[in-house]
């Protein structure tokens, strides 16, 4: 009987870590489930953040649309996700047309700035010039690439008609809407973000928009 006391004490001392270990085991069993829960929460958070971004983008567009609704202004809405554009007047769609994206030939970007200049802007942009029979000003690098010496900066041989089609609409920020190259015209590499429209659509758009008209790129 006398020997049993220390044994009981030892057993009690050993019980604590055992209990703790049991708790830890239980917790680690739960850990898998909790990790899954955490992952689920992360995914939900990510989905919500992305939904909020979409809603904010939609709100920016709605503000733009609301401002022009009921006015007598013509403007463009260019949905680059769907590849569809529309010409609108005071909120009403007058014409819908296909957008040809990523069809411009481009020089290899030599700097990150070059690469970013090929990316279409998002949001509201304003027309700075509309041009019939736009000319392409051949830059130095084009001659150098072909192993030729660039002609004088103001040389008329630098101006080529046709690569941008029959019309071009220039927007602030270097973004251009233009037509397909005219028959026989060279396909020139363009150093800008661009959208190509069919000639019929472009002709109508050019006839109704002016310098200062706006477009919304989504």
């Amino acid at each position: 009987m006398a020997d049993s006391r220390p044994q009981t004490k030892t057993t009690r001392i050993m019980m604590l870590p055992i209990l703790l270990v049991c708790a830890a085991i239980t917790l680690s069993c739960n850990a898998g489930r909790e990790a899954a829960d955490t992952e689920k929460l992360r995914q939900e958070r990510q989905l919500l953040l992305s939904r909020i971004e979409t809603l904010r983008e939609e709100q920016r567009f709605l503000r733009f649309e609301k401002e022009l609704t009921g006015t007598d202004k013509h403007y463009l809405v260019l949905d680059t996700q769907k590849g569809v554009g529309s010409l609108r007047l005071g909120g009403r769609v007058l014409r819908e047309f296909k957008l040809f994206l990523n069809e411009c030939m481009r020089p290899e970007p030599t700097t990150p700035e070059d690469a970013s200049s090929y990316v279409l802007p998002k949001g509201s942009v304003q027309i700075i010039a509309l041009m019939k029979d736009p000319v392409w000003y051949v830059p130095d690098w084009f001659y150098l690439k072909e192993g030729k010496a660039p002609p004088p900066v103001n040389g008329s041989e630098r101006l080529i008609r046709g690569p941008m089609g029959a019309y071009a609409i220039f927007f602030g920020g270097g973004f251009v809407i233009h037509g397909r190259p005219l028959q026989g015209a060279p396909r020139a590499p363009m150093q800008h973000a661009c959208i190509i429209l069919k000639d019929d659509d472009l002709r109508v758009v050019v006839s109704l928009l002016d310098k200062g008209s706006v477009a919304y790129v989504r």
Partner: protein
Amino acid sequence: MKRTTLAIKIVLSALCALALACHGDREREAMSREIADLRTVAARLEYENGNMWQDIRVRIGDEPYIVVDTIGNKLSLRKGERALMEAIVSTGSGKLVEEKGGRKWIFTTPKGTFTVLGKERDPVWYKPDWAYVEDKLPIPPPNSQARMVRGILGKYALSIGGSYKIHGTPYKRFLGQSVSHGCIRLKDEDMETLYNQVALGTKVYIY
């Protein structure tokens, strides 16, 4: 001694596991709170956007409207973002007719925003002076019955002001071409559909 060390190690490991579990709980709690906040933000944005859409719809109106493309000779009846019908039309030829006396007429379709001011079944065409000048015929008096021509405007017509109409035509073979005297001609079947879907006051956008 060894037993005690082992026990301490086990206790410490267990405590670490507990601490980690507690930390995981706190992280999940924080994330749950953030998710609740994000849900509130999303709900507020959805509400605001819904209101803005509603405002825009109210301002534009929900009535159908007509769009005429004089370059492509196409007409569409639209409602909101949808095209309800599309038709091939004939619009103004741009031709010039000149009278010896000095009067001139250019047969263009006017561009801009118009309104349907009248709807007619079996419309009668009041043959104007230019039609006689164009055909090199003598011009009858203004009230002459000879000026009243039936059938030439088809079965239905919509007046858009300034003697311009959207109407049917027997000259179906010219649809898609700019051959009219300024009116917008459709084949009778399309004209009937259009006539039945528009009311007085419908907006007509011509470009």
